[in-house]
C-alpha cells in the first residue's frame, strides 16, 4: 500500500527534555510559598473543635497567644502557661506584650488588632478569664478562639 506511506522526518515521541524544568518550577513555587514556623511552640496545642468557624482576612492584624500545659514539664511545671512570641510570659506581662504588638502596626490599624488565642482543650476557664481581663485592660478586645472544624450533625 504505497499510498499510505509513512511520512518521514517527524519524530514520533514527545520531547521530554523540558519536563525537569517544569517540575523545578513547581518545586520552586512550593519552596517559596512554604512558610517555615519561625517560633517553637513551648506549650501543648490540641485545639478544641467547633462548627461555627470564621476566617480572618487580614493576617497582619493577628497576634498569637498560645495557652496550654508546658511541654517541658520538668522546667515549667504542669500548670497552663501563656506563650507569646517564643517565650512563656506571666499574666501580668500581657498588657506590655499587646502594646508591643500594637506598635508593630500602623497607627490607623492599632485599634483593629486581633488576638488569636490558641488554647489547648485541657485548659480550665480560670486562666482564660485572667487573660481576657488583661486583654480588656490593654484594650485589645477583638479575640479569636482558634479552633478546628468539626463535622456538623
Amino acid at each position, binding site marked *: 500500500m504505497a499510498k499510505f506511506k509513512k511520512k518521514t522526518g517527524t519524530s514520533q515521541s514527545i520531547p521530554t527534555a523540558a519536563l525537569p524544568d517544569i517540575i523545578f518550577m513547581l518545586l520552586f513555587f512550593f519552596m517559596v510559598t512554604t512558610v517555615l514556623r519561625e517560633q517553637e511552640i513551648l506549650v501543648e496545642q490540641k485545639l*478544641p473543635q467547633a462548627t461555627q468557624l*470564621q476566617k480572618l482576612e487580614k493576617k497582619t492584624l493577628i497576634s498569637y497567644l498560645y495557652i496550654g500545659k508546658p511541654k517541658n514539664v520538668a522546667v515549667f511545671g504542669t500548670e497552663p502557661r501563656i506563650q507569646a512570641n517564643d517565650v512563656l510570659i506571666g499574666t501580668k506581662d500581657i498588657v506590655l506584650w499587646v502594646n508591643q504588638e500594637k506598635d508593630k502596626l500602623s497607627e490607623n490599624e492599632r485599634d483593629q488588632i486581633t488576638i488569636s488565642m490558641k488554647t489547648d482543650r485541657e485548659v480550665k476557664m480560670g486562666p482564660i478569664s485572667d487573660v481576657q481581663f488583661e486583654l480588656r485592660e490593654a484594650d485589645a478586645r477583638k479575640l*479569636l478562639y482558634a479552633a478546628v472544624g468539626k463535622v456538623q450533625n
Partner: protein
Amino acid sequence: MARKKGRLSQEVNAGSMADIAFLLLIFFLVTTTIASDKGILNILPPKQDPNQPPPEIKLNERNIFNILVNANDQLLVEGEYLDNTLSLSNDIKDFILNFGAPDEESIALFNSLPASLREKAKRDPSSSDHPMAGGAVVSIKTNRGTSYEKYLEILDQVKRAYFEIYAERVGLTSDQYRALTGKTPAEKELIDRGKEGIPMAISIAEPDKIGGN
C-alpha cells in the same frame, strides 16, 4: 592523542532529573502545612473604670437566656439540668425569635422576617420580648474550673443559633453566610441585611471562683 570513543554519548544523562525533582516536590508538598486562622470571634467588653460602679442594666428575667456551667462541666440551662448541647441551639433560636411582647419597631422587624422564621415566634409571655437591642440576651456563666473545651462548645452553639437566623434571613446556608468576607459591597450588604435588628447579644459573665484553680 586518545581517540574519541565513538559510541558513548557526551551528554550527562538527564532522564532521571525529573524523578529527582519530583521527589523534592513531594517532600515539600507533604511538609507544607498551610496555617489556618479559623476560630470563633468574640468581642470583649470595654475595660471597667475602677472608680465607676458597673452600669446597672435593667433587664427582665424573661429576656435573659441563662446558661450556667459548673466546674464539672455540667450544664444548667434556664434552670434545668441538661445532658448535652445538641438541642441548645434550637432552644436559643426559639428564645430569640419568641416575640413575647414586641413594640412597634420589632413588629416591623417581625414582618420583614421570612415565613420560616416567623413560624418560630411562639409569643410565649414568659420568654423574650423581642430580639432587638434591649430584648433577648444570651448569658453564659462559667466557673473557673470549667474546661475551655466545654465553654467553646456552648459558645459555638449560641453562635450557631444566631448565624442560622442570619443566614435564613438572606436565603443562604449558615456556612455560606459565615464565609462572607464583606470585601465587596454586595457581600457587605448581605451581612448587614442578615444582622439588621437582631444584634448578637451574648453576655459572657466573669467566672466565679468556687471549685476552680
